[in-house]
């Protein structure tokens, strides 16, 4: 029981990070019908910007109080949002009227560009960071097995829920959210009705990147080790999460992220550690056979 609870905690905190990244994939897909393959690398950029921020602060003599962490998070979110905007402006908008594969290829190209840019500018070595948020609480104790909930895990779960709540309000209650949903349903019609679709799409990228930056910062605080390549694996997992939950669906992305995190964790907990990815992807395949649009996806007129 205690063991299962510990693994549940592990799985949820891992799944929350996947979910936060997955929201970025699903939003962009919903609005312009393309997979933004550079999104995993935007997450990596967010993590690096936070690391740089923390290093700069510690050079200035400030060591990781809550205020410093919030400041770093905000700066990283703002700058990563700027990256998101620039990516859309440079790599996708010029290709919007082009054939369907063009933006997909420029997305893959951009992913390579971002990775190499960070590799060259920051060095290829793994960047470790001192643990800033230490310790945790003891949830329960059973037969000598202590269930630990680290403060970083609480932070991840809390921040993710808060960010998603704000985000849900944004999409359902604000004029911007209404414009986004309109673009999602029919971009041409939306523009005929006076919605600035270019601006709406730009803002979607900015928001997606901002969420990725939050995920990157949480990742940095939790694991403390990043390199230029982390975006790839995290991106693949988050993309899978988005597909599993039903791409285009926001609650689906979070649900998918949680499921992937939980499947991986529980498979490693009770079966073989090395086959956890096989398990996660097999479940994805099975789900897609029976529910081609994912768990919460709706039937959609074809888009790629």
């Amino acid at each position, binding site marked *: 029981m205690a063991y299962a609870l*510990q693994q549940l905690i*592990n*799985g949820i905190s891992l799944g929350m990070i996947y979910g936060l990244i997955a929201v970025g994939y699903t939003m962009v897909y919903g609005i312009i019908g393309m997979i933004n393959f550079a999104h995993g690398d935007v997450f990596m950029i967010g993590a690096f910007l936070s690391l740089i921020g923390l290093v700069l602060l510690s050079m200035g003599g400030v060591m990781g109080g809550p205020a410093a962490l919030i400041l770093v998070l905000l700066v990283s979110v703002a700058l990563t949002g700027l990256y998101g905007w620039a990516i859309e402006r440079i790599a996708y908008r010029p290709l919007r009227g082009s054939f369907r594969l063009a933006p997909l290829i420029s997305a893959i190209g951009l992913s390579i560009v971002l990775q190499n840019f960070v590799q060259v500018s920051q*060095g290829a*070595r793994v960047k*470790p960071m001192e*643990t800033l948020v230490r310790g945790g609480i003891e949830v329960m104790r059973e037969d000598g097995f202590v269930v*630990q909930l680290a403060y970083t895990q609480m932070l991840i779960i809390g921040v993710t829920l808060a960010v998603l709540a704000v985000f849900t309000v944004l999409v359902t209650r604000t004029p911007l959210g209404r414009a986004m949903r309109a673009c999602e349903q029919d971009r041409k019609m939306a523009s005929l009705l006076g919605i600035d679709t270019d601006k709406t799409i730009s803002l979607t990228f900015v928001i997606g990147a901002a969420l990725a930056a939050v995920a990157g910062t949480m990742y940095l605080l939790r*694991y403390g*080790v990043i390199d230029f390549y982390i975006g790839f694996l995290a991106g693949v997992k988050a993309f899978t999460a988005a597909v599993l939950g039903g791409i285009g669906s926001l609650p689906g992305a979070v649900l998918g992220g949680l499921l992937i995190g939980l499947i991986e964790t529980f498979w490693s907990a009770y079966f073989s550690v090395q086959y956890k990815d096989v398990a996660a992807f097999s479940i994805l395949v099975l789900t897609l056979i029976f529910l081609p649009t994912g768990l919460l996806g709706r039937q959609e007129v074809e888009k790629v």
Partner: protein
Amino acid sequence: MLNRRGLIAGTAGLALAGPALIRPVFAQGSGPIRIACAGPMTGSNAAAGEQMKIGAQQVVADMNAKGGVLGRQLALEIADDACDPRQAVSVANQLAGRKVAMVAGHYCSGSSIPASKVYAEEGVLQISPASTNPKFTDDGSWNTFRVCGRDDQQGQIAGAYIAKTYRGKKVAILHDNQAYGKGLADETKKALNAAGVQETLFAAYTPGERDYNALVSRLKGAGIEVIYVGGYYTEAGLILRQAKEQGMNVTLIGGDALVTKDFWQITGAAGEGALMTFSSDPRQRSTAAAVVQTFKAKNIDPEGYVLYTYAAVQIWAAAATKINSVDPKKVAEAMKASGPWQTVLGDIAFDRKGDVTVPDYVFYVWKNGDYVQM
């Protein structure tokens, strides 16, 4: 404004002319002798690659200052395999194409083994400063040598030590399913079982990930007190850090891949008391004193594989000088037949397989951010 067609033509012209401009000039018999240092200059083992690079650059500089080898200067090529077996093969082909006389490399056994096949075919001598998997020389042909020990020796020492020191405690053996890690874990398990101790868990993890919490909780659930990791420092460091974070009181024991300060950077205080097997510190040996002084003057700590790479090139140079030829096959024969060779590591001789005759593994322990011999 530049005419677009002109721009395209110009770019295409440059692209076509590029290779012609930078094509290397081959010279046989005169001019510098090309040698190479190949290892992970990028990726998660880049710290080790850098150690090799520093060692190779220093030995080449020192030898050239003394007039080179056989009266010819040495030219060093640095090649990056990122510890990826495929990239190692393509790097090996490139180096063979550039007619290098010897390669000091590679680092990861998983890279050294496939690369050695290419070198054997193309007539390149390979001396690895770090690859400890037995297969490297067991399957190797005329061209494979190493100046480090072998995992069966390293595993025997680790297994025997665990059996003796931690008798009655629960031991887990983990590995990363790669040539080096799995080989080391297998050998350690063999030695441990031979000493009459059965491990509680033998499992593999996926290298390159950051979240090993599920595995760590599993270890915690099994009441593990000693973890042996056959793998590299990034993953071993993360596993230890996450284990301590989950409140486990464990001792982590690893192999020579943990011998880098980067390990401590990842673990922080959680690394205190972690153990690893490595050769007795070459920096302390009298034969290395002069070179260590040179490094200290440049503010470099010649840790890990720096001196091993240095020694690899020294042996090759000594053998080539002795037979007055850089022909790789003849040098390889001489390296096995003659010796012992004087190096910064002390005297080194090779057996018929290309392994050093006297390996010396000892235990190191991490204390306050530094590792000290036990």
